[in-house]
Each structure stands twice: as C-alpha cells, then as structure tokens.
C-alpha cells in the first residue's frame, strides 16, 4: 500500500510539474512574441496607422513596393479608426510594446515625448538613413519639438470651409478670401432661408476652427503648457453657438448625432462644415452633391490664422530596428511611386518629389491642390502654435461639451466651466 502511494504521488508530482511547465512555457512564449529578427538577416517591423479600409488598401500597396525594394525588411501592419487607434496605441505603448513605426499628428507629439515613447530621429538623419531635405512649405520642421525630430510629415492639410456647392449657388453666396465673420453669419442665414437647410453643421465644437478664430485675435487655443484663452472668450464663442442652434443657422445637433457616422454635410443637414480640406474626398464618396472648398472667414479682412497641419510618421523609442524604421519612413515620404498610390489621402504630399509625382486629374483632388496653393499665394499661412501634453483630451472634451451645449444638455456657463475643469486636469497630468 505504501508503495502504491509513492507511485501515485510521483505521478501526481509529474503531472503537476508538467502543467506548471506548460504554463511557464506559455508565458515565455508570449514574452518572446515581440522578437522580430530571424537568422537570415531579415527584419520585421510593425507599422500601425488610423484610417479606413480605403486608406489601408493604398498603404498596403505602398508596403508591397517597399518590401520589393528592401527585401530584407518585412512590414507587419495594423490599423483602426482614429479613436480606437489611440486607445490601442496607448495600451501597447504603456506595456512597452508599441509598433516600431506609426502614423502620428501634432496633438500627440508632446504627449508621447513626455512619456518617452517617441524616438528622436535626428540620429538617423545624421547617419544618412533619413533625408529631411526636399520638403515643401517648411514641413520638415513640423515634427520638431524641443530640438528633437519626433515625426516626419507625410502630407499637409489645412482647415477649410467645405461647402455643398449647389446649395451655396442656390443661396447666391460666393465666399472670397478675406470675407469676415459677419459675412459668414449673413451667408448662414441666407442658406437657411433660401435652401431650407442649416448653414453649418456645428462649428462651435471644432477645436481647430476655434484655434483659428483665436489666432485671428492674437491668441491661440493652447500655450506651451495650458489653454491660451479665457472663460470669457469661450463664453462669447458658445453664446453665439447657442443662438445659432436655436435659430437654425447650425444643424440640429440631435439629427447630427443620429446620422453618425455620416457627416451632417453629406447627409444634407447643413450647407457647409469646417474641417480639414482633404475631407472633401470622403464627403464626395459619401454624399450625392458636389463639394468645394471655401476660405476661412476672418476678423480683420486679412488674417485667417491658418497653418498647415500634417499627418506624420513617428518611430518608437523601443524599436530594435531604428535603421530599418528610418529607411521605411524615408521611402514613404520621398518615393515618387508612393505618391501616385496614396494620392491626397493623407493630405498634399510633403516632399516636392512626391508633390510633383502626383498631379491630380479629378476635380476633387485638383480643388484641394488649388486651395492649398491659394493659401500660399495669399500669404495667410502662419507658424503652428504649440500642442501641449493633453491636447488630444482637450480636443475631445471641446467637441463633446460643444455637442452637449448644442443639444441643450448644458447651459453656456455650465459648458464653459466643465470644459475648463476637464482641460485643467488633462493638461496638468
């Protein structure tokens, strides 16, 4: 009997040991999941971006091209819609496992620099793996923060008033460079009265537009470490918004919320919308009408406060293949063939080589090129103002609280107070 027990115990021990070993192995296997080098010198880098299926198809084509030219580098891809992208990225980055290279924007540079996530690409530039020459309109400096090169622009875009052209024609409005906010208000009323549609889709919650308005008045949405405007400023902006919603100048916010993810413009709730100029591409595929680009209204008849915004490529500080990542970015921003594949999907290409390689033939993309050229010609472009750590959270809060104001869920004073409270928290963390 004793003997029997012994055998049993040994079996048990073995079984338990085996199961522990399996769990242990499992853990090791997961831990090794990040490894990406292999024996023959082939290196795999991970590339992530936000966007929709359409962008993914274009990007995949550019990656095929890259892998053909650099057979020793394999690219693994991952993409999500904008808000989901940042949630996933944030989680990955905090776990020390961010993608090697990823799409980025100005609002996130300081945030992730403060968290030591971004690679300073200066060294790769010095080593000759990444060329920062040949960029248009000073774009080569867009990703520079405190002397570090944290992002390389792939394209430029600018805020614009995207209009439903037939609606504006019916209302008899032709917006011209230098028109004022008074002209704009009048135009909104005319669109409403003559076409039965709201003039605008809800400009009061668009952080990038309010930024332009503030810049026209010598301020800006952000300073280096905080908000660049006062409660009184925002009270004025949102009081006008509340009136506009009530009088039908701005589209019914409830309807706007209900038709999401379609835009108010393409769903024919409003005659125009303030957004980035490359959005006409999306609206054209989404809506039935013809969409055009109108200039931003001004305060003094001259300054629009505009600057070029840009999507960038950034690298992770934890990447084990900085050289390959730099090579990849270099290829994506300079190769002419990439430009013909991408078109204006991520804005007007950042480098002259790519800009010249792709000449749009369709009216929508032609209009985008013409719009940005007109901004350069009018000399309204100014340097961009800073986006501190937490800017992205402020932007989301501005949009959400603006919507709540429009929906009548908040009074102006309540909305202003809530926004300042949330921003203070976001910008101080």
């Amino acid at each position: 009997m004793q003997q029997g027990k012994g055998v049993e115990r040994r079996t048990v021990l073995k079984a338990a040991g085996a199961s522990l070993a399996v769990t242990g192995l499992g853990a090791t296997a997961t831990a090794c999941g990040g490894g990406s080098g292999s024996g023959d010198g082939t290196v795999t880098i991970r590339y992530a971006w936000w966007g929709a299926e359409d962008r993914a198809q274009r990007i995949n084509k550019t990656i095929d091209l890259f892998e053909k030219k650099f057979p020793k580098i394999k690219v693994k891809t991952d993409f999500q819609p904008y808000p989901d992208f940042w949630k996933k990225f944030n989680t990955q980055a905090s776990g020390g496992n961010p993608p090697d290279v990823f799409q980025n924007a100005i609002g996130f540079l300081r945030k992730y620099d403060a968290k030591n996530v971004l690679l300073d690409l200066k060294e790769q530039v010095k080593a000759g793996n990444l060329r920062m020459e040949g960029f248009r309109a000073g774009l080569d400096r867009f990703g520079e923060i405190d002397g570090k090169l944290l992002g390389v622009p792939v394209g430029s875009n600018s805020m614009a008033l995207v209009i439903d052209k037939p609606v504006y024609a019916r209302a008899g409005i032709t917006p011209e460079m230098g028109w004022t906010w008074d002209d704009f208000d009048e135009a909104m009323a005319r669109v409403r009265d003559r076409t039965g549609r709201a003039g605008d889709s809800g400009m009061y919650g668009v952080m990038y537009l309010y930024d332009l308005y503030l810049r026209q008045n010598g301020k800006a949405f952000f300073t280096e470490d905080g908000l660049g405007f006062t409660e009184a400023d925002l009270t004025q902006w949102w009081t006008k918004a509340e009136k506009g919603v009530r009088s039908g100048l701005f589209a019914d916010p409830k309807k706007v919320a209900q038709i999401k993810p379609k835009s108010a413009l393409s769903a024919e709730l409003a005659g125009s919308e303030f957004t980035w100029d490359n959005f006409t591409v999306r609206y054209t595929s989404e809506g039935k009408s013809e969409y055009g680009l109108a200039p931003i209204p001004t305060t003094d008849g001259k300054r629009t406060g505009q600057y070029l915004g840009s999507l960038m490529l950034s690298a992770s500080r934890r990447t084990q293949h900085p050289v390959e990542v730099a090579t990849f970015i270099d290829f994506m921003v300079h190769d002419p063939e990439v430009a013909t594949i991408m078109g204006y999907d991520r804005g007007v290409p950042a480098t002259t080589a790519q800009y010249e390689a792709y000449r749009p033939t369709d009216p929508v993309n032609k209009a985008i090129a013409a719009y940005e050229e007109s901004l350069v010609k009018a000399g309204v472009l100014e340097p961009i103002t800073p986006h501190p750590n937490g800017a992205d959270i402020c932007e989301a809060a501005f949009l959400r609280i603006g919507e709540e104001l429009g929906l009548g869920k908040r009074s102006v004073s309540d909305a202003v107070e809530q926004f300042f409270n949330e921003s203070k928290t976001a910008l101080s963390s």
Partner: protein
Amino acid sequence: MGTAVTHAPATEGRAKDPEPRHGPDTSPRPADLKRRGRRENLAGYLFMSPWIAGFLLLTAGPMAASLYFAFTDYNLFDAPRWIGLDNFSEMFGDPRWRHSVRVTLWYVIVGTPVKLLVALGVALLLAQKRRGQAFYRAAFYAPSLIGASVSVAIVWKAIFSDDAVVDRTQKVFGIDAGGWTGDPDLIIYSLVALTVWQFGAPMVIFLAGLKQVPRELYEAADVDGAGRLRQFWNITLPMISPVLFFNVLLETIHSFQIFSSAYIVGGGAGGNACGPADGSMVYTCYLYVQGFENSRMGLASAMAWMLLVAVALVTAVLFWSQKRWVHYEEGGR
C-alpha cells in the same frame, strides 16, 4: 520493503497489549496519518495549482494592484505616485462621474424589474403543460446565451440606429424620433431593451421554482374558492420567493456591471465613448474612459473599488431585506 521489518517489533508489542479486545489495529499511527494527510493535501494543492496560479496571477494579484493604484496617480507610463484619497475626492466632485452614477442607477432600477417581470410572466405561461413547450423554453432562453456578446450589441446598434428597423417602424406610426442610438435620451432605452430581451436566464430559474410549488396547495385553494390572482399572490409568490430573491440579487449585481453593450451601442461614431451627450455613459464606461482614454489608471482603479463597495452594499441591503419577504420552507415559518 524495509517498512515491514521496522514495523515488526511494533506488531510484537501490540500482541502483548493488555487490552487486545479492540481487535487487530489496522489504522496507521497518528504520525503516519498526519504524514499521509499532508501528502494528500500536497497532491490536492498540486492538482489545484493551475487554478491557484491563475487565481493569484490573474485575479488576486491584479485586484491587490488595483487597490494600491486607487490611492495613486498612475498614468500607465510613469511610476504610480501615492496621493492618498485624492482620487476619491476628485470622483465625488466630478459632475461627469455623478452623471454616470445616475445613468447606471436608472438602468439598474428600470431594467432589472422589467426584465424579472417579463421572465416571471413568461415562466408562468410556460409552467403549464402545452404543446411545443420545450421549443418555447429553448427559444426564450436562447437570447440569454448570446445576449452579452459583442456581435449582438453590434446587431442591436444596427437595429436601433437611424433609418433602421426601429426607426422605420416608428415612422409607420407617425413617430419621427429618429434612431435611438443617436439620441441622448433614447439610447438608454435601447440598452434596457437589450437586457430585457435576455430574460431567458431568470425565466429558467423561475420555471424551476414554479415546479417546486406543491400541487396540493392550489387544490386546497380551489376548494376554498380562491381565484387565480389570489392563488398567485398568496401561494405562488411566497413559495417562489427564495427563487425570486436569487434572481433579484443576481440580476441587480449583473446590471451594475453593464459595460460591453453600452460601450458598443453607444460608442464608435464621432469619438464619443458612450453615446451622444454621454447618454449611455454607465459607470463602467466612464471608468474605461478615465483609464484607457485619459490614461488615469489610478482614478479608474478608485472608481472600480467604489463600484465594488456600492454593489456589496446593495447586496447587503437585499440580504437584510429578505427577512421581510422571502419565505424559506424549513424553519422559516
């Protein structure tokens, strides 16, 4: 084996025992017993080791960590910084947090009773013998199996969004309310509808409870001339009150934890995590927003522990109240 040899003197000794009437002593000595017990314990624990490891690493460990984080400022990237009760005071002072509490309470207080009423009603119908009974039971139970899944939430969103089934149906009746999921006031109703639709699980438990009620009671009541309603009120309800209590408890706790449906039905479009104007911003949704969108893991942990405390309190109140309305057969009366 050597053991036999070493035991020999002991057996000899036992033979000389002054009281051999106890018969041959086959049980091992206490020390042996202890050793074997310990060995058996060890084997038991080893068998349990996968579970224990999982519990410690995946449940207890994270819970302890979260308790610690609740008192820190922790953004996932930098080391947590101890800030005492600051997270809790911030939470109570935050109007958005209070809004999420209101939305959650509304959801629990409306959704749970409606769901249980439907479950009980259908269970009463299905308790009687009729054709196709098994089919109906299965059909009504099925939503409970899939209802919590992400895919159903996506389908739900599609049903209740603009220009979809619900919207078009209400238009037929001349109601132009638009899609529920885009309406800050209506979106919560679509979530209540989703939870009520999953009434199958409590229904099955009610059915089991109804089967336990002795027939004689109803026969006696019939003889006494009690009507259907009175029978339900005075016999059925008291007899199934333990089952009712169980269901109330389970569903209430469950309701407090609503997340995926609110997040999916309310989220997605336009960057709002939980519905337009925070219309479906239930507690766990706000917890998620703070933790994963705003990277405030410390605050999110504090919120999680607050929820645990709140649910524990509600559970305690329910247990306390059962003395008044739950009738247990033995000893209770």
